[in-house]
């Protein structure tokens, strides 16, 4: 009994906390993705590149002398700008064409390649660093957590709550959900759906850029960073239910635990495999994901 307690306390619990923080980082990246998918039906393969746009912009702004916390607000607007262009000049004109979903997939994939190459050309292939604004480690018993990770966790949790509240408890949220549910009907009621589309894409891009800024002090930034993260974010939103904020949170945290607790018992390379197996199972058994999509629940 005593050894079970010490196992739980010394090995299990710290691992749970590490996984929680890792999971929240995945949630942060997945939020914008799920928003764009749920509301617009676009699987944005360039989401990872919007993430690095935020990260690189923050590195540049901080290097130019801006304090970190100002950069957190300013840097994501590079991602917003790129996102706006993607929606305005890319996705917008494609609307109503046959095979729209496939076309959006191809378009965003192409854009992701262009952006990654652009990052490589502008910033070089080597990773860049952004010093965390908060250093030091919080130690509680056997649990070690860097203070900056705790801050990122708190910001992410607040964002999730705000996003959920905005979508489900405000008039604007009701409009967004209505557009997701029935585009034609909402348009016929006089809602400017084109504006809603652009606004949603910009919001999703802002979240991607924000994730890039907040996570760069932990993961550094290179042209490949977004690409590495995006597969996990996709698995997360598929498991959680595409378009569901709550689902993204639950699935993201679960994915974090699979990495963290998984590494206690299985070879870590299998953790990633397990996550994609879970994704496949969800697709087979419950294709809509564990939780309902925006506009449908």
């Amino acid at each position, binding site marked *: 009994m005593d050894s079970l307690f010490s196992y739980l306390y010394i090995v299990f619990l710290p*691992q749970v906390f590490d996984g929680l923080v890792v999971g929240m980082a995945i949630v942060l990246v997945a939020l914008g993705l799920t928003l764009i998918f749920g509301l617009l039906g676009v699987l944005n393969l360039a989401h990872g590149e919007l993430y690095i746009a935020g990260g690189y912009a923050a590195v540049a702004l901080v290097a130019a002398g801006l304090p970190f916390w100002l950069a957190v607000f300013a840097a994501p607007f590079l991602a917003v700008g790129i996102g706006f262009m993607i929606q305005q000049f890319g996705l917008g004109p494609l609307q109503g064409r046959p095979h729209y979903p496939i076309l959006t997939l191809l378009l965003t994939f192409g854009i992701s390649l262009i952006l990654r190459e652009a990052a490589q050309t502008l910033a070089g292939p080597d990773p860049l*660093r952004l010093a965390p604004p908060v250093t030091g*480690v919080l130690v509680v018993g056997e649990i070690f957590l860097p203070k900056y990770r705790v801050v990122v966790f708190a910001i992410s949790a607040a964002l999730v709550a705000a996003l959920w509240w905005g979508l489900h408890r405000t008039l604007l949220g009701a409009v967004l959900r209505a557009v997701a549910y029935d585009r034609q009907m909402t348009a016929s009621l006089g809602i400017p759906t084109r504006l809603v589309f652009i606004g949603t894409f910009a919001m999703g891009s802002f979240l991607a850029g924000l994730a890039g800024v907040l996570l760069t002090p932990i993961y*550094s930034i290179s042209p490949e960073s977004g690409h590495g993260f995006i597969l996990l974010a996709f698995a997360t939103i598929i498991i959680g239910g595409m378009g569901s904020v709550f689902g993204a949170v639950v699935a993201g945290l679960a994915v974090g635990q699979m990495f963290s607790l998984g*590494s206690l018992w299985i070879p*870590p390379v299998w953790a990633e495999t397990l996550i994609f197996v879970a994704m496949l199972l969800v697709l087979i058994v419950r294709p809509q994901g564990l939780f309902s999509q925006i506009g449908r629940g």
Partner: protein
Amino acid sequence: MNRISTLLCAATALVGLGASALADEPFKLGLLTSKSGTLAPVGVQVEQGVMLAIDEINAAGGLLGRQISVTLEDDESDPQVAARKAERLYQQVGVDFITGTIHSGGTLAVGQIAEREGKLAATTVSYATSITGESCRESMFRVNAHAGIQAAALVTWLAQNVEGDRYLILAPDYEMGRDATSMFAQQIEAAGKTLVNTVLPPLGATDFSTYFAAIRSAQPDVILTMTPGSDTVRLLTQLGEYGMAPGVYTIAGASGAVTAGNVGAIGEPANGFLTAAGYSAEIDTPENRQFVEAFRSRFNQDPDVFAVDSYSLVYLLKAAAEKAGALDTQALRDAIRGTTWSTPVGDKIMRAEDNQAAVDMFVIEVSIDGNSASFGVKDRVLAADIPIEDKCTAF
């Protein structure tokens, strides 16, 4: 009498002409390296090293009086292209010797073709231990240190110079990482130290923090990491975040883990990172200073390990040619094996048993001072002190 002497003169002249024509026939070297593709940056240094040495040797009279001519080919960082072009170089251009391949797969292919064609080849870059191990060939030589030599040199030095018996290995979970893990484990055991844990994150892992509890509870003195460059950036920054670097453990790893390119992204946690490498431009000997100066004045940059090894290879050919007194394949091969020759970093021996050069290794320590980083040579591990197992059975 007059006529006879005229004939004699003509004959002598002809013989003389013939002889000098033969002496003027150059020794043909094929430089088959990566000029495009992912390995192109390495190819640049390989070509520079080879060309510098050839020009020096040609200016000093060549190989036994014959000039060295070079045919340059691009293998596009692709082993299959390397094989195709090696065949062309031997059969159509008629080269006697090929060097320059970087990708280990390309080097293995070139070795096979060289053997079939009855010609010679060498690599100055490829790391795979098997090239002069299980897959060794009589016609293929290697002048650079392979992955096993790096591991052996590093652990040998750590065992003698760093306090503590507890070693932990952290390596990406794929073929190269697992190879390195078993090599490190052997060396740790041979040095009489304890391997307390082996952590195998996937290659390209984003977050290493989920392995930190395992590292902390193993209480290692030394962490040996085989993570490649971009993974090392995240590993070290995150160790730094958790207060586990620098200064908590001795952290050592593969050369190429912490580089001039990525050290800026790591910052403070890279301080004290140790690695074993075959070369540093900072090695302070008259021979190396002279080489670095010649290299800089011609190419306007510092030579790296690939450049110096490629440069040294051409001098190995010169040493062997002088030893053999001939340039045919058989004579040259016999002369190369077991020969000692001098390089900018001192004498090297080409082992006769597996065609692998035994080389001194340098322990390099990363120092971070504010925003600047330096890679200082901390110590030299002599070739004689680095155990290399002979796994070559083909000859």
